[in-house]
């Protein structure tokens, strides 16, 4: 096991709980901020996708609207009885572990794979229930083909079973500010130290 000392130090810093800056209630989710004019996405950017997504606040966007800040991304669905509550819990745990200075420069993105049931209203209920901060978390739904495409890019496999539950790969992806996959964290109950370190690295170059 060759873990660079710098990463150990970084993650040690990450786990020190710093007070999280309180967020005003009327703040807009990351998807609703004014899009930056950053030119063409790079050849490996997920922001090359043209698909249109709807957020829990009803706003329609292309994923490129999130450009300029690193995004911590996971696919989920609100009716999930198995892993998603844990997956979202892990994301929230990461949120509490990040130092305030890092947290200011990163967003969380949850995209539903349940195109049939996860309406914007369902997503809004989920946001309330799981207390996902408005100005840090984006919740999106999209058409079945667009979800399939995004999942394919992230390397997430999923299939619906006869009870309307989806078996899916548990993968947390860090996109850098340009929308390129910077790091992927696979599986539940894994030590997030490397992911946290990758987030800190990605946010150091954040453009807004």
């Amino acid at each position, binding site marked *: 096991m060759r873990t660079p000392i710098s990463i150990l130090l970084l993650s040690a810093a990450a786990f020190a709980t710093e007070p999280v800056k309180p967020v005003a209630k009327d703040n807009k989710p990351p998807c609703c901020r004014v899009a930056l004019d950053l030119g063409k996405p790079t050849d490996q950017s997920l922001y*090359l996708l043209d698909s249109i997504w709807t957020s829990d606040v009803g706003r329609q966007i292309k994923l490129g609207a999130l450009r300029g800040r690193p995004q911590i991304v996971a696919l989920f669905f609100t009716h999930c009885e198995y892993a998603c509550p844990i997956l979202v819990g892990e994301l929230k745990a990461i949120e509490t572990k990040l130092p305030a200075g890092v947290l200011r420069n990163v967003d969380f993105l949850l995209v539903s794979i349940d195109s049939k049931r996860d309406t914007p209203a369902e997503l809004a209920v989920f946001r309330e229930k799981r207390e996902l901060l408005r100005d840090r978390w984006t919740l999106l739904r999209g058409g079945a*083909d667009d979800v399939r495409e995004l999942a394919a*890019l992230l390397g997430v*496999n*999923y299939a619906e*079973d006869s009870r309307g539950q989806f*078996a899916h790969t548990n993968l947390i992806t860090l996109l850098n500010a340009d929308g390129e996959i910077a790091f992927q964290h696979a599986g539940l109950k894994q030590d997030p130290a490397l992911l946290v370190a990758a987030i800190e690295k990605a946010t150091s170059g954040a453009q807004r």
Partner: protein
Amino acid sequence: MSMRLVLQWVAALIALCAVRGAEPGLALIPEATYRPLFRGEKDAQEVRVAAFRLDERPVTNGEFLAFVRESPKWQRSQVKRLFADERYLAHWASDLDLGDARVEQPVTNVSWFAAKTFAASKGKRLPTTAEWELAASAGFTVRDGAKDRDFQAELARWYATPSPSVLPDAGGRANVFGVRDLHGLVWEWTSDFNSAMVTGDARGDTGLDRQLFCGAGSVGAKDTGNFAAFMRFGFRSSLRAGYTVHNLGFRCAKDMP
């Protein structure tokens, strides 16, 4: 009408037929039940597949060349790395030159994105895995290929033979629906190739991978005799959408009118 005009008209009609002939015909696959090979206890044991239409043969180099001519951003030197890896169309000589590749060979070294976009450009789509497997389970003479001895012998022969370095042209023996080359030429992309849950399952690896790779686990599989389908299942689950493979091509499907 002058003779000259008539001749022109006939020539145009022949040209039109030639162009139409270049497109593969669509075979009708009637509504049927697909039994997925693998299932967890809660997974559907049967999937109802509505009637649909499927290209009678895979898309060829010639057809794909015409497509990239129309859509330069899918040419080898133009494609974004996000949508296809470095081996994209590597068997062609250049962007618009097939080189040693033949026009009638199935096109390979194409990513899922490229296949999907080609299909959309024809007003078609990729078949789902269920649709593809359903069409591929048909024998030469009967719908249930398991009951067709000739078909079974052909299947075993192909899946036991490594891909030849030079692919044959499309145009193998048609199955009972009139579809050719589902077996025996190339692997094919499906729209939901990434629905195979082999590792990293949401429920913490329920053992689907053991069902696939371990003999004792095949109790969870629907049809233990269908070795070819096991191979396809494993192959699909190893793919990523940007991958290009020398023996992986595709064909298009279409909903019923």
